[in-house]
């Protein structure tokens, strides 16, 4: 399958047709179904979707962070700067993580070790990947903290995480992610737990630093509004599948997929005053027993018989692709029918 978009400067991350299952007693949970995501070098790409749709699973699978032995990759490949992360052993992954790809997680409250001082946590990472002495590592840490607009970085380094506000902690985490100058940063809902006022600042920090250093960023969020301000391109996920993909502006201004459209209608800032906010009826389907055909069809107002029997696949022009029978050219994905 083609991604349809040209990436002039080459790939930072190329996920190709990735399918992943969690085996459980009642059967396999199909968490990812043929997910393909490309991230160009120095590009900022967003993945949006409701929680549970597989955004985090995708990136965690790509960086080998999922719990061992608890999942099966049934198909697909992942290429991180040309290297196949799926084939790496623990040691190789450890070398890659932090150095080539860093992840910023949500919940900054818990993402830092509560019993270790900030400075040590930063220098541990720096000294793990860079050949530096402790004083050098501390200087690097200080500089990068300063770059994250943290006043008195020296003092902050001597503090414990619980002595910092949520926003400050998230800056520390971002600093940590950038500290070894990775080529790719995965920001997994980095601002979800923060105040709205702090959110904007944090997002700006990530964006600025990434643009300045030419770092690629994968931005994961359930909040379309947040993503729209930052990203060059956007992937919309639903129930473990990519349903729409395109340049941010295109997707936001002319959403094709009924799900994307519904998602956008939920945004308060996009709704005209006095018009009612809309909620998407129904719930995300169980991935243990997914519905036949298009996964969105049980909640889709436009669904027709075809939608209920066959899964649509991603298709469309370079600038925008959508997986929907009711939109433009769509062909059938292979072997999706009748799965229980």
């Amino acid at each position, binding site marked *: 399958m083609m991604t349809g978009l040209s990436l002039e400067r080459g790939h930072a991350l190329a996920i190709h047709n990735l399918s992943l299952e969690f085996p459980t007693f009642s059967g396999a949970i199909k968490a990812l179904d043929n997910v393909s995501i490309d991230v160009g070098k120095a590009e900022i790409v967003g993945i949006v979707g409701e929680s549970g749709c597989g955004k985090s699973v995708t990136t965690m699978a790509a960086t080998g962070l999922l719990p061992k032995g608890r999942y099966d990759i049934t198909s697909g490949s992942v290429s991180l700067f040309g290297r196949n992360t799926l084939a790496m052993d623990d040691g190789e992954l*450890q070398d890659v993580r932090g150095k080539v790809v860093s992840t910023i997680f949500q919940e900054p409250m818990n993402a830092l070790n*509560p019993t*270790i001082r900030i400075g040590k946590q930063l220098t541990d990472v720096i000294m793990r990947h860079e050949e530096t002495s402790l004083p050098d590592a501390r200087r690097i840490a200080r500089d990068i903290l300063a770059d994250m607009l943290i006043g008195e970085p020296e003092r902050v380094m001597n503090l414990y995480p619980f002595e910092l506000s949520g926003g400050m902690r998230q800056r520390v985490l971002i600093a940590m992610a950038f500290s070894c100058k990775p080529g790719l940063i995965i920001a997994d809902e980095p601002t979800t737990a923060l105040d709205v006022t702090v959110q904007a600042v944090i997002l700006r920090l990530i964006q600025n630093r990434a643009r300045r250093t030419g770092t690629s960023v994968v931005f994961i969020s359930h909040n379309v509004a947040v993503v729209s301000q930052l990203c060059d391109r956007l992937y919309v996920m639903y129930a473990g599948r990519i349903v729409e993909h395109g340049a941010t502006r295109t997707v936001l201004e002319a959403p094709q997929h009924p799900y994307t459209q519904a998602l956008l209608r939920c945004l308060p800032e996009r709704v005209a005053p006095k018009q009612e906010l809309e909620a998407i009826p129904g719930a995300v389907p169980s991935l243990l027993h997914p519905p036949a055909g298009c996964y969105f069809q049980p909640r889709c107002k436009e669904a027709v018989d075809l939608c209920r029997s066959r899964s649509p696949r991603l298709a469309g022009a370079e600038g925008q692709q959508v997986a929907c029978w009711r939109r433009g050219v769509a062909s059938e994905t292979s072997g999706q029918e009748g799965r229980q």
Partner: protein
Amino acid sequence: MAITRIIFPRLILLLFVVLGVAIITFTISHLIPGDPARMIAGDRASAETLENVRRNLGLDRPVVEQFTIYIGNLLQGDLGTSLRTNRPVAADIRTFLPATLELGTVALFIALCLGVPLGVLSAVYKDGPIDQIARTVSVCGISMPVFWFGLILIYVFYAHFQILPGSGRLAMGIVPPERITGFLLIDTLLQGRFDAFCSAVYHLILPGFVLAFANMGVITRQIRASMLDVLQEDYIRTARASGLRKGVIIFNYALRNALIPSITLLGLALGDLLYGAVLTETIFAWPGMGTYVVTSIQTLDFPAIMGFTIVASIGYVLINLLVDLAYMLADPQIREV
């Protein structure tokens, strides 16, 4: 400031506990149907002799007065006189406590040395063969009747193979060293009695292991559970995402945090240790507090029973105080607020 805030309520509690325990044990000992005077003077003592013994013990006075006297003496550190040995209970406790502490310390040390690594391995390799083995061993430890385990080990190692001693603190022919601390391992070394030191170590192996085994089970289970909790914390994911090495993550980032809740458990384990020590000592003829209190109970030596109970309760409160302090030192969140 933080320290006083922890210590002060504990000291108040200590007062409560000592008073409460004194009341409870005093009440119990006066419920005892057996007549302590008869225990001392003998079965066939004449009524006159019994009366005299009762008067000497103060047992002829009203109960409230007896209690006031007891508490008054208690406050001066006087635990009364043992009915059986005619010695001050405090002196008896000083005699027997070191042996128990020595056994307990060795057992705790063994239990920690085996239990912590086992718990860590079990959590890290969850559901793997190592985990299954570790869990089986730990469940065995928790479920082991100490008294029976001791008997079996004595039978196997002492009676059958004759490779380890099965009773006492020193070999028959070895003259005990002068008593300095009461801890044989220390006293023998202070006096350069290397033969006695080796014998003491040798005699500690079986009882130490028996006592350690049960506690090891508890420790393994606790470390495993808190390691599992910690390993799924976000900060461990952060550490993994930063590419830190597995060993660093497990020992510097995870174990450290997993040990904090375990400190509380250590306090509880010390309580268990006391209970286990009483049984272990009776099996291994270990001349410690356990043997002392069991004999005291069998002979209704109630000043000794009360003294033991009070000392043990004070020990319990103090251990908890230490545990809280250790907790405070280990967790910066409590320490610095």
